């Protein structure tokens, strides 16, 4: 049993403590916006925020995040308004298949919180998510566009 606070809602989930947060979110809580891509912290498709930090949920056991604030892609928008990263993604027509984009957006949202105006080098360091469709050129443009907004 683990008590998880996800997008502001407390969920008591009946899972083994070593269950990766990814699968607890997807299959016990039922939020499927967070994706499975590799399971070994390589691709970033499963990125969520834990107390505001971008975290690869496939390698995070639920036991490590009890009592912490977890935000998934479904909880990124606040009070009915898209997060500026989500809006920049729409404005710049970023997603192709879209499968990696939940994780990409969560990683970028955390980056912009730390560094509101990231340089290209900051982006290269912080954004290591895999996108097999190859949206990186649009991702970079959209990060700068989002950063340019207040």
């Amino acid at each position, binding site marked *: 049993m683990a008590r998880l606070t996800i997008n502001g809602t407390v969920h008591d989930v009946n899972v083994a403590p070593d269950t990766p947060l990814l699968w607890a979110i997807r299959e016990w809580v039922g939020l*499927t916006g967070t994706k499975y891509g*590799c399971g070994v912290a390589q*691709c970033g498709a499963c990125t969520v925020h834990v107390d505001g930090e971008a975290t690869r949920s496939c390698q995070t056991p639920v036991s490590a995040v009890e009592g912490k604030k977890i935000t998934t892609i479904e909880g990124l928008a606040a009070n009915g308004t*898209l997060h500026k990263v989500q809006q920049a993604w729409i404005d710049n027509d970023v997603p*192709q298949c879209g499968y990696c984009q939940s994780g990409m957006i969560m990683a970028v949202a955390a980056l912009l919180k730390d560094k509101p105006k990231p340089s290209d080098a900051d982006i290269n360091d912080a954004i290591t998510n895999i996108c097999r*469709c*190859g949206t*990186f050129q*649009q991702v970079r443009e959209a990060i700068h566009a989002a950063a340019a907004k207040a």
Partner: protein
Amino acid sequence: MNHIPQLNRRSFLIATAAAGGGLAIGLDLPFGGPAAVRAADGSPEVTAWVVIKPDDAVVIRIARSEMGQGTATGLAQMLAEELECDWSKVSIEFPTPGESLKRGKPWGRMFTAGSRGIRESNEMVRKGGAIARTMLIQAAATTWSVPAGECTAANSVITHKPSGRTVSFGKVAEAAGKLEAPKDAALKDPKDWKIIGKPVKRLDTAPKVVGGLTYSIDVKQPGMLLAAVRACPVFGGKVKSFDAAKVSGMPGVKKVVPVGENAVAVVAEHWWEAKKAVDALPIQWDVDPEKAKVSSASIAAFMKTGLDATEAFVGNQNGDAKAAIAGAAKKVEAVYGYPYQNHATMEPMNATVRFTPEKCEAWASTQDADVALAALAEASGLPIEKCEFYKLPLGGGFGRRTTHDWLHQAVAIAKQMPGTPVKLIWSREEDMTQGRYHPATQCKLVGAFDAGNNLTALHMRLAGQSILAYVRPQALENGKDPFAFQGLNAAGPEGQFGYTVPNLLIDHAMRNTHVPPHFWRGVNNNHNAIYLECFIDELAKAAGQDPLEFRRKLMANHPKHLAVLNAVAEHAGWGKPAPQGVFRGLAQHMGYGSYVAACAEVSVSDKGVLKIHRIVAATDCGYAVNPAQIERQVAGSFVYGLSAALYGECTVKDGAIVETNFDSYNVLRIDEMPKVEVLVRPSGGFWGGVGEPTIFVAAPAVLNAIAAATGKRIRTLPLKNHKLRDA
């Protein structure tokens, strides 16, 4: 304006069409005809292609699969162009193959590969729009008792010119749907296009940024269980035995089941529980000892035997290359090789299946819905009318989802639990080691010069694995594979060789292994373009000529190939000094109906660290439906192609694939992404593909630039296996 992070109407339609399982069309009559056919919400169809609602919302049906390449938006643009509807009112939905079958395939083939979405269905889709427009106009004209010829349509409004009366599409759609559809309708002259050719935004973005798009892996069904599978790691091997008792007491585990002859699955309440159990499950494999000895080295040695074999299948020839080479003043020779690649779609293979003796349903994503439905019938043993395949959005395809081995597995599992929906998800490890791989090949090239340094002959001997021999043996010609010559053919949209050489011989020695090959974005063009374009640079060097000038002399008879090459050379500043330490490389190729070229700019540090700074790419796809999406496909294809060139390699040891995840099968990420500048240069008069063609030129342009930078010619991939500078 507040942006509401819920699904808007448009995305909601996509999501419900997908998740809810098709359109739930109320078929008053099976083939359209004079009674209204109704969409799920009761709105009348004008034709099978178009539903128009009373509020003028236009729903366009898309038969082809959308896997990120943007084909759905492009096809909708083409239909909307002829329909003369208001683009801002357009949304899309995807019919199921079962509906298609019931209605006599009104949408044509659902197959989506070979960059065919737009190039093969453009006429059918545009006519779908034109016919619907004709019917809407007729319906309005009938209401007004005026000749249809006096009415025009624009922006979803029909106008009777003489009287100035107007009516919107939504008001006459019901009446239009009851009319007999005309057999044919004239298409607009391309010069009159208003929506085709515009860089409009994709129609399917909104749900993708809020985690709201239901992919196949996200499907939920009441009472659903989850399955994880392990197949014999040595291709062709079988399950000898497994010890279910060892794992059946593990948390959540419901059942351990054999899957076909070569795999075992664990079914559990949750996928994580199934995965843990299947990993712990003792399985004994029955493996052919010969296959268990196969390694990358043994495969390479086997393919090498094809390089000088006397028996080979000729794909393209003129003159007498062998004689010309024998009598040449100067000869240049090189051997190249290309390794196995995995598609590694971001979303691993998965499918949800519910089987009962009366019905078999699958929720999954596919690049070929017609074949997926047939596979469902075959695997379930039920007649096809009792099967339905609900198409979901694809988390990447790249060719992998044209084949349905994973669907067969999901059905085999579901059949052992009748009535219970079971979702099978492959782990990334399973996806990497049970792939259908880009074939490994080798190539020996020999060029001959006369005393004046003119190229007199070229012999290109391909040796390696045939995709067709494995996937579609019936398409072979007397056991030979004409498809091996993609991009090297004497003529035709599947890839015309772009040079004129007085004595030319291109032939293929098939060398098949037990590793299953498949179509992989770009397919045989990938290695063919590397072999040819790198060797052309080697020939230019041997002749002491500039690679661009050398090519130009050979390309006078191929103006379309030459035009895109000239475009990238000019835009990149070929012949002008590059920035300090930066070197350029060129490549051109033709395939899937399009002409493409690239100029790459790279630097290689003293320590041998490669940086790809910029790639200028040009494509002539005949007609460019959406330049913004074309740019994205070009840049994306470079990521895919360069991932392969830099890192991609599935090695074989003891008959099995070694690389199991992205830690050992690395791919390009944002820090290595070059700046991509795209020149969309449609010359008109033909429809070429977009999703694949530019991938052909990414790797050879970069390899040529590396050779320019270092003087060292790399002839085997991936680059990670090479030191770019000698220590």
